[in-house]
């Protein structure tokens, strides 16, 4: 049996010791997240850092909503790429199509799970949404179009797209044969069936593209149409959400593609052209997002309402400055990393180079400084609490400086390898995406109230960090398990 199982392509059905250890680690983190959430369910939201806006000087939306927005953003890449590959006939990107589709599904599941902990009574929230929601509300659009419509459409697309491979794998005797037969549902890869699938997938793609733009825009409108909340009320909110969604999703897709290229040894199928294509698209989206950011900042600081200006200053030079500049720095560094492989060798660009020992030391120091910062503050504080003592702001800046040195030290590698540049760019823009999501959600609540309340603060607790860590582990677990039961890339006939 084992000989037959090994015939399954891309490591499907092969469970080694390392795999089980990895699963054990992931299950432990998921378990810890569930334990943390159970504390919240038993004791209430008081165990989190979430508090009422104004009267309690806090933020009602925090880490959970920021990561909900982040996960929805990540989901953008998958089905968009799959649809674009189909509609624009981008055949060279086909190997990443299924990875992207799976990323969408997993990210949407995580997005749904991120919202639930933010509700004091999650079950009541779900039932009341289906019972009373107003379809005119962007909240309704977010939960129907994003969570239901978008997830359902992605599942349909994913299922139909996988039938051919399921049919091919069902020919190979293996413990998973029954599962493949069920998935294939009678598919035999005849020319007529292939033609029918192409037609169905084409129309699905046509239907999905406007759906996903609408879905991501409604999430932006949740913030963008709140006229009484400086920092949120902006026309650019919805398009910026769509662009940032593309940035985080394609960034993560680059990282995942590189991981599979390395783990599966598929250097030919996951060739450099894929990374060049995705990296170029990512760089373009980052440029558009930077343009949006500059336009927004210019508008708010030049003619903005007094509260709007105060909020913007809190971002640029105030308590949120460290997060804002770290996010922007990560975005710019990611862009530079993505563009480095395109600099022609004839252009005399001097890429900074450091000794490896110095690089490692800078990385270790950055990690150490980060740890010290967390211990000192009992968790990274997003804004100083009222009456709190002086914060060691310099620690944050030293940490950021060391991180920059660490990234710069890898630049020579990025200039040589488009894959390494893609991974670095993908990771950096995702750091920026998480930071930007936090900056969208939190400061407008603590520093953007029009009522005469003083500035508030928000410090996530161990419960929130644990739940978010558990969600990341759950996503990785789902992705990893799926990869072991179904090929992550399209199977060639000869395989």
């Amino acid at each position: 049996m084992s000989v037959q199982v090994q015939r399954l392509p891309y490591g499907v059905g092969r469970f080694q010791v390392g795999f089980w250890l990895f699963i054990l680690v992931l299950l432990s983190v998921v378990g810890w997240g569930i334990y943390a959430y159970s504390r919240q369910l038993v004791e209430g939201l008081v165990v989190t850092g979430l508090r009422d806006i104004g009267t309690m000087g806090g933020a009602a939306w925090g880490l959970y909503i920021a990561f909900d927005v982040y996960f929805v953003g990540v989901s953008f890449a998958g089905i968009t790429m799959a649809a674009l590959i189909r509609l624009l006939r981008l055949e060279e990107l086909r190997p990443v199509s299924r990875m992207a589709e799976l990323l969408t599904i997993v990210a949407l599941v995580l997005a749904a799970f991120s919202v639930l902990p933010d509700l004091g009574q999650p079950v009541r929230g779900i039932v009341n949404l289906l019972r009373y929601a107003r379809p005119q509300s962007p909240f309704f659009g977010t939960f129907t179009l994003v969570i239901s419509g978008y997830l359902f459409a992605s599942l349909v697309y994913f299922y139909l797209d996988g039938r051919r491979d399921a049919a091919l794998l069902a020919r190979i005797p293996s413990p998973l044969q029954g599962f493949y037969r069920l998935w294939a549902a009678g598919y035999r890869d005849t020319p007529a069936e292939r033609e029918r699938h192409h037609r169905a997938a084409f129309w699905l793609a046509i239907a999905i593209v406007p759906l996903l733009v609408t879905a991501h825009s409604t999430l932006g409108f949740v913030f963008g149409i709140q006229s009484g909340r400086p920092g949120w009320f902006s026309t650019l909110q919805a398009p910026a959400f769509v662009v940032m969604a593309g940035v985080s999703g394609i960034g993560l897709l680059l990282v995942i593609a590189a991981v599979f290229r390395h783990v599966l040894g598929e250097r030919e199928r996951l060739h450099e052209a894929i990374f060049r294509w995705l990296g170029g698209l990512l760089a373009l989206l980052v440029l558009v997002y930077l343009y949006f950011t500059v336009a927004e900042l210019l508008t708010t600081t030049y003619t903005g309402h007094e509260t709007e200006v105060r909020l913007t200053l809190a971002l640029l030079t105030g308590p949120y400055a460290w997060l804002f500049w770290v996010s922007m720095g990560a975005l710019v560094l990611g862009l530079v990393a993505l563009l480095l492989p395109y600099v022609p060798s004839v252009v005399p660009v001097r890429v900074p180079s450091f000794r490896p020992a110095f690089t490692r030391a800078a990385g270790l120091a950055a990690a150490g400084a980060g740890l010290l910062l967390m211990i000192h503050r009992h968790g990274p504080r997003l804004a100083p609490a009222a009456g709190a003592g002086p914060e060691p702001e310099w620690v944050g800046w030293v940490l950021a400086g060391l991180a920059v040195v660490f990234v710069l030290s890898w630049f020579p590698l990025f200039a040589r390898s488009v894959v390494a540049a893609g991974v670095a760019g993908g990771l950096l823009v995702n750091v920026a995406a998480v930071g930007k999501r936090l900056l969208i959600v939190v400061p407008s609540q603590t520093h953007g109230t029009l009522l005469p309340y003083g500035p508030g603060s928000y410090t996530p607790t161990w419960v929130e960090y644990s739940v978010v860590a558990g969600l990341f582990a759950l996503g990785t677990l789902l992705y990893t398990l799926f990869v072991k039961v179904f090929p992550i890339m399209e199977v060639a006939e000869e395989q």
Partner: protein
Amino acid sequence: MMRAAWTLLLVVAGFALQAVSYFFLAAPLGVPTGPVYSNPRVPFAPAVFILGVMLVFLAAVVYELLPESGGRTHRGTG
């Protein structure tokens, strides 16, 4: 032919459900002047809208999986 008919039926039914729930079952459109604008006219109208969205996409599954007319079906592939 049968397959196309079922597919079309699902698409039309899906869009119809969306339109009906949005315009006639959910909270009324217009300037809100009372609580009537906050509550749906029929409970679970939003769920009907979601069902409509799902039906439209389910049409693709029906189109691919439904056997040819005349009852010709394919057995497993193994």
